[in-house]
């Protein structure tokens, strides 16, 4: 593990990662920045890169950013841990949880 110099940061707001961008697939078109009603994201200063998550504490989990992204796989929804739901197989009774 490469060591990182510690810097003085305030605690991060939580949850703070409503979505996870895939930099290999995201083309930085910023469509998600536009459809988000809240301005959770801002465009990346480096053109072509995924947006930056600036106001994650204001996200209301409407899903528009992921629903409307024109590039499949570029952005994935990331539910807060306490919101991850369960289901079970009716036949076997095995219970699953959203990972």
């Amino acid at each position, binding site marked *: 593990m490469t060591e990182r110099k510690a810097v003085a940061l305030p605690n991060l707001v939580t949850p703070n990662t409503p979505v996870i961008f895939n930099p290999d697939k995201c083309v930085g078109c910023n469509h998600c920045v536009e459809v988000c009603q809240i301005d959770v994201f801002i465009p990346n200063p480096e053109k072509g890169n995924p947006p930056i998550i600036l106001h994650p504490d204001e996200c209301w989990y*409407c899903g528009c950013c992921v629903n409307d992204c024109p590039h499949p796989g570029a952005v994935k929804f990331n539910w807060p841990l306490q919101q991850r739901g369960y289901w079970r197989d009716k036949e076997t009774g095995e219970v699953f949880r959203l990972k």
Partner: protein
Amino acid sequence: MTTWHDFLLREGKVPDWPYPVNYDTGQEIEGDVLVVGGGIAGCWAAISAARCGARVILVEKGDTIRSGAGGPGCDHYCDIPTNPLSKVDPDEWAREMTGPYTNGIGTQIQCREGYDTLLEYEQMGAKIRDDKDEYLGVEGRDEKTKFLVSPRQNKDHCRNTVLRVWGSTFKPALKKECKRLGVRIFDRVMVTGLLNEHGIPGNRVVGAVGFNNRTGEFLVFKAKATILCTAGNHSLYVLNTELSGYNSFRSRTMTGDGFAMAWRAGAELTLMETTGPLVLGLGFRHTWYGGAGDASYENVQLVDANGKKLPIPTQGWRDGSMPDAFLRLLPTIREGVLKGEYALPFYGDFPAMPPEEQRATWYMMLREESTSRIIVDTYSAAGFDPAKHQLMSYQLLEGDSPKQWRVPGRGGVLVDWNLRTSLEGLYAAGEQMFAARDHSFCAATGRYAGRKAAAYAKEAAEPVISAEQVAKEKKRIYAPVKRSSGIEWKELHAGIGRAMQYFCSEYLTDSLLRLGLQTLEEIEEEYVPKLYALDPHKLMRSLEDLSLLTHAKIIIHASLARKASSKLLDFYRIDYPEVDPQEWNKYIVIKNENEKVVTRMLPQYFWGDMKKNYEAHNQDYQGVYRGK
């Protein structure tokens, strides 16, 4: 690298504000009809006014592409009894939907014109039918029209007033149509105040001012007619802003801006004293309820951990009920759980449904319902299959929302049969009206208000705005950016929320309400002058707090004015315990006149004969749009 702190750690600096900041520059835009709020009602108002030949300006705090109180979709188009499959008379159905403390004007418009509105959605390219035959065999599917009738309020197909629709296609279609018609859209602009002729509240409304929440730019809109299409307020009682965003049923952009603007302009409001428990969202409830209300279990039988059916209606064809039955039954089920009659947790038994119903519910209804599309997609990708899997329900497990976490209820702007407010030049539609209803209500009333406002604008005199009023509002807007310390919007929001929780929630008395008012006034005098905002986004949130504050005060004033309890309004005064006494069975109408609170009463059903009045006001109604 997608988070803010990643950027900071890598670059060694925080990102620059990505938009040019211009607090001091501005522009004045002029038109015939100004629409404030670009949700469902606002887009429809803009489209319909433009189709009447008006030059239309549409101003939206987010982006019109997906904005609106209810979020990005719509699964049910309700109460459209003029659809060809309906089995009820539209006027009778409207009357049936209009009990005490409802909105008979809007409901009549919805019942008469809702279906025409839906057909116009289709003209714009939105999807309202199963034209690709994906849902053959689904109960309620009509082969001739390819409509999917919903079981809602439709036991054994007795009514057919609700259609299932592909509502995720609606908002983009509306924005496209607005553009095609030449509507001038101002996205990311928060309107903060209405302008009255000569700058005197109570006078004709001649426009509005606002600012761009990315650039800070100041905008003045001058118009002959203005339509208020902002939505309600969902976060007033919420202390923690980190919770207020997530898992909420309604958009967090709903902050009572419209109430505050209407109040300051001198318009009459009614039912402002109503609030209800916030049963959805806010981190107290699981996402399914937050995102979809009861919808995840609409049509789906709930079973206990041993597979035993729970006595809960599914809103399916055999019971056709509404979800409140669930809440009523919950205490009995809880008893059963404690006695060992039912085992926790409960599950939605998708596999027990016929395969085509599973598909229609999971892949169509829930994907088209607003915020649940992302839930369905995420769960489907993780392996949930409605043919095999039962979805967990968190009823009882997650407990109840505390009673002090509330949501403002049916309050809104008072309108007449033209959807005109008490002020000349100001119209209202959708959720901004009193006792508003659902998507089709907002669409139909927006479309109606658009044509009425356009008709007025054709005859109206040139609007004259007051430079003094503009300057005053400009000063109010930009005060927080002049400071960099004091109190930030989140803390102010929590302070307002706490005052409402303590003094205007479950326990209501004259003295508690007065303490509430005193606290809010103190906040206004002591803390608002210390409010600071570091960028245009935080400036918007700060101005939203000021809307919350005004809205909170209106609620308290209205609560003080109702000196009786009411079961119908879920409003209980400890000092006036008599429930729904005859003399208080009235709408309290409230307005701000020269900084004084003035109230009057209106009787139940003050709108008169709904059918007659609708017809008298709409002799020239053209039906479905046939123009270009």
